[in-house]
């Protein structure tokens, strides 16, 4: 056990270092006094102040948030519906094709997704005049399409684990199918919906490639602003922004993990409690 555990521990340490030291450095350098990104010039929060005076940056952040919230919400609804259909519809012709097509955006190179969506939007615009031009709407639609695939996967696994007879019991007791779904199935899917939404939200917030394809001059997301300003030279201001983004992502992930962890703990506690009750019964 001895040598092995030393090896494992160092592998773990190295892995984590590889993942998180750069981020840690970035956070440290966001408090750099100096104008040069790589040279430490003392502690200061002036770049954060600078950041909040940057109109363009703030506006892009707002656009990003709007897009992320809208597309996460739509993706959750659509992803849930498609998951429901895939789990409940049973076998039908072309089921495999359909399954593949729903999950394809997960593995499709972003460049292809972006380019194809751009082509779609341009031809739609010329044919029916909607969406007029490219901007927040097109980014939202594009993000919805790939987020939907993620929600589908999350909800589908939860749905497959649900006992179908619970819904049947509701119908047996007089609830019509739609009501049974709303009152019984949906609440049981709750945690999956929450984590699907949060996942979509962060994915949308992160996306640069697809957004660059489908965004017009009217709308720029935060990652796009960051990327273009980096090309002109990195300022500590970007470090500050990145630190804030890391913070937002961490908080969202912690919430998602917390929801799932509480669910799990609840279940575990219930099981032990039930077992104890059983013994004392």
């Amino acid at each position, binding site marked *: 056990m001895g040598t092995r555990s030393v090896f494992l521990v160092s592998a773990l340490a190295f892995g984590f270092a590889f993942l998180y030291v750069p981020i840690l450095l970035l956070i440290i350098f966001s408090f750099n006094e100096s104008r040069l990104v790589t040279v430490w010039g003392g502690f200061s929060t002036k770049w954060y102040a600078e950041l909040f005076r940057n109109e363009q940056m703030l506006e892009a952040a707002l656009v990003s948030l709007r897009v992320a919230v809208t597309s996460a919400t739509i993706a959750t609804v659509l992803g849930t519906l498609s998951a429901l259909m895939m789990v409940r519809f049973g076998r039908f012709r072309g089921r495999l094709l359909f399954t593949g097509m729903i999950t394809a955006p997960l593995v499709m190179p972003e460049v292809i997704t972006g380019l194809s969506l751009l082509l779609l939007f341009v031809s739609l615009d010329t044919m029916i005049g909607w969406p007029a031009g490219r901007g927040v709407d097109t980014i939202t639609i594009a993000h919805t399409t790939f987020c939907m695939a993620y929600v589908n996967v999350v909800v589908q696994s939860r749905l497959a684990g649900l*006992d179908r007879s619970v819904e049947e*019991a509701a119908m*047996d007791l007089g609830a019509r199918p739609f009501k049974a779904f709303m009152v019984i199935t949906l609440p049981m899917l709750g945690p999956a919906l929450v984590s699907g939404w949060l996942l979509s939200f962060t994915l949308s917030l992160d996306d640069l490639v697809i957004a660059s394809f489908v965004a017009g001059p009217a709308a720029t997301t935060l990652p796009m602003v960051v990327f273009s300003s980096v090309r002109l030279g990195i300022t500590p201001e970007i470090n500050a922004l990145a630190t804030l983004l890391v913070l937002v992502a961490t908080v969202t992930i912690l919430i998602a993990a917390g929801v799932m962890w509480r669910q799990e703990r609840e279940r575990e506690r219930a099981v032990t409690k039930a077992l104890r*009750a059983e013994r004392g*019964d």
Partner: protein
Amino acid sequence: MTETRAPGAATGAAPRPEGSRPGAVLRRAEARPIIEIDDVVKTFGEFLAVDHVSLTVREGELFALLGGSGCGKTTLLRMLAGFERPTAGRILIGGQDMTEVAPYDRPVNMMFQSYALFPHMTVEANIAFGLRQDRVPKAEMRDRVAEMLELVKLTPFAKRKPHHLSGGQRQRVALARSLAKHPKVLLLDEPLAALDKKLREETQLELVGIQERVGTTFVVVTHDQEEAMTMADRVAIMESGRIIQVDTPHALYEYPNTRFVAEFFGTVNMFEGVLVEDEPDHVLIRCDALANPVYVGHGISAREQATVWVALRPEKLAISRTRPDAAHNWDRGIVEDIVYLGGISTFHVRLDSGALARVTTQNLERMSAPEITWDDVVYVCWRPDNVVVVTS
């Protein structure tokens, strides 16, 4: 056992003693039918799950559908609940055709094998769910829920969530929930399968008690022969989609109509034989596995030279070390194994023909040394009226 035994099932109509709850059964024999299943067929693709089943369940009865897994009993139950639609045939509940009626419009409720409790609702809310769908007034709903909690002795647990209950308690919540709407018929899908043996035995009688108190017709699906015997007024035995025999537990055990029923319902020693002498008052059967012919004290409806099966229940065989001097109904063997079960012992006797006979004896005396032991040469014999003959 009575001396004047009614003829075996193979002889056709004969007066039969009624089941373990004679009063109840006699009363219910006149009750009107509540469920009429009329030539129902259900296929899933190529698979024939239910094969031309016709069945009548009487009002107030505790009826069991008994069979191995995949025999179609659950499919039949789900058709009664409305979750499956029959491919052909009709289902009448309370005299009304329910074949096409959706589950939420049927006057029946179902208790699921997994209990299917709503995990995000309290015990109380679970029980009230059906009443709420019917828009029962608040005050009445409260009373009905309280009554149901009382019935299943769960009043102190009203505010708990299902996962804070033990298996037995969950089972009772499921029962209360499905009874709350006062259904005409309660369908129970393996209601006790998830409980451990001891709890299951207690719950069987508890369930019978509840059924008698509320007077609702119960249709129970089970694979457990003992459970069906303990609980049901009448039992339908199913195999590969068909109903083989419907009768009281007593009649199924003593007068099985086929080999399948005899073997499925209890333990039996089965010997294949040929009918060699056919008289109105007795028959003689010669079995390859038995040294002496089998004498049956009543006529049976089979021709001479027909192949028949002799079914001998282990407890109706006697074992001794003295050789009987009768001309039939005994055989010789060696004790191969003794299974001691406290109240009874089962002797596995290897007959001279190589066939195995199981004989159970009651251990009535505490101190007496066992008379028969391993490798003893013993004689197994039985009375002519304790033989069951089946022809298929």
